[in-house]
């Protein structure tokens, strides 16, 4: 598979009152075409910052990004983002259908964009509600509209920032399966930022584990599960449980068991010292998660 996204030594520092706050400390990874890669990391480690840098919403202080071979400057032409805040990312004054059409107005004629929007709504199982306003839908349905809007745009890369963090557990399972089905059917390349270790294992072909700020890639895990996944049997399987513990261990500052080496020894060291500081916060976080799932 050709490389779709290549991130090289990307770093970002925010200007803070007392100097600078280094959120991302130099992150390198690649995503192949058709892959779904999950990014996990402790709270506040710069996952959103990383995603916003790739999307061109902020310009990183160092490093470079290449999307299907061409260096990215500003906002790439064929990239879509699904934000966590589904209710705010949709336009309440437009119907569902018109929300999906909205980004296509620039490039497509009326008939073509109507057809594309209808098609994308069909993919996410919302063909019946195109005429409704978004506030007439449930949260899960609204997020499906946002996903349909992103897919209708036919992006080379789909970025998602904690897309299912604001919906209830049952809806999250449904949306996870929907995302897997739709993106596989269309061989989409997807990068998902998530808080949830289980979700990252369930969704991902690969998992990038980040350390606490300034974040680095602690591990790049390949998810050795069959591509067909099932909310019950997959989550019960031994491979799933092993990977989940491995991811959790890495998040809490463990060293990678290293079948796939981390890019440099230096990073692993850094990861450990920094990650130990985050261990407590993250343990509290996963504790909270466990009760919701």
């Amino acid at each position, binding site marked *: 598979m050709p490389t779709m996204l290549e991130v090289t030594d990307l770093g970002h520092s925010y200007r803070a009152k007392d100097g600078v706050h280094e959120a991302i400390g130099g992150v390198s990874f690649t995503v192949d075409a058709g892959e779904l890669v999950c990014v996990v990391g402790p709270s506040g480690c710069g996952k959103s910052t990383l995603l916003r840098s790739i999307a061109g*919403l902020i310009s990183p202080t160092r490093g470079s990004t290449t999307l299907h071979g061409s260096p990215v400057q500003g906002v790439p032409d064929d*990239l879509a983002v699904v934000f966590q805040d589904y209710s705010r990312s949709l336009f309440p004054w*437009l119907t569902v259908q018109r929300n999906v059409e909205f980004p296509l107005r620039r490039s497509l004629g009326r008939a073509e964009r109507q057809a594309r929007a209808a098609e994308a709504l069909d993919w996410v199982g919302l063909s019946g509600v195109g005429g409704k306003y978004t506030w007439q839908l449930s949260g899960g349905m609204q997020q499906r509209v946002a996903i349909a809007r992103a897919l209708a745009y036919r992006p080379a890369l789909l970025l998602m920032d904690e897309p299912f963090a604001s919906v209830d557990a049952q809806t999250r399972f449904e949306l996870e399966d929907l995302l897997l089905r739709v993106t596989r059917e269309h061989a989409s390349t997807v990068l998902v930022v998530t808080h949830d270790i289980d979700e990252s294992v369930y969704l991902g072909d690969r998992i990038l584990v980040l350390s606490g700020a300034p974040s680095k890639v602690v591990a790049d895990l390949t998810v050795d599960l069959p591509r067909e996944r099932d909310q019950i049997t997959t989550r019960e399987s031994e491979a799933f449980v092993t990977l989940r513990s491995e991811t959790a261990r890495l998040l809490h500052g463990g060293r990678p068991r290293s079948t796939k080496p981390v890019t440099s020894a230096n990073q692993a060291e850094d990861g450990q010292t920094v990650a130990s500081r985050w261990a407590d916060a993250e343990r509290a976080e996963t504790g909270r998660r466990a009760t919701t799932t």
Partner: protein
Amino acid sequence: MRNLFLRRWALFAALVAAWEVAARLADNPFFPPPSEIAGTASGLWLSGPVDRLFLSDAVFSDVLPSVGRLLLGWGLAAVLGVALGVAIGRSPVARHYLGPLLTFARAVPPPALVPVFLVLFRVGTPMQLATITLGVLWPILLNSADGARSIDATKTDTAVVFRIPRAQWILGVVLPGALPKIFAGLRVSLSLSLVLMVVSELVGSTNGIGFKLLVAQREFDFPQLWAGIALLGVLGYLLNTALLTVERRMLAWQPRQEFVVKPTTAGD
């Protein structure tokens, strides 16, 4: 719903009836009964020929010019206020530099400008238009700026990521997002337009409803004076109802359609 409507107007009718009785009992020339005012009003404005829908000459020489100036002045203020307001609302730099100026401009009571415009334009329509437009501009401008500014960051990010072109961004996101606030400003301004129309005609006009009020007062024609006042009330009611209808249609997408007539003060 229908019941509520009936009850509301029943109370109105009862109050008019009470006034009628009180006025007849008091028999004071300053306070003619409503029936007499209504008679005077229909004689003044509805005594014209059939082919002009019974509208009399006074309607064409006084009422329509007044209404025309009001609508033109308010319309100009609406166009200017929304355009400038949206531009200022989306520009932090403009807000930073113009903020104090706008707060000051808004604090000046609009009728205080009448003498200034009288000097600048003398008596006549330009002076009245200037008074209305510059007087009612601020609520529209400040509300539009506020509405445009408060477009949330997720929508801005969404527009940037999908590379929404500038015109589509302004017309398709900023304006609709700011529309509820814009309408709040437009409503306040419409009521204010009526006030300024009358004020400007009281001091600087040779026709119009306000001018006729002054004439009636000088001639001690109290029924005509009251008829003029009632006409202004009816006019304000109709204009507000018309605007509310437009607003209801344009904001039909809003989740809850509770359009209470609440005068949102500018800029809050």
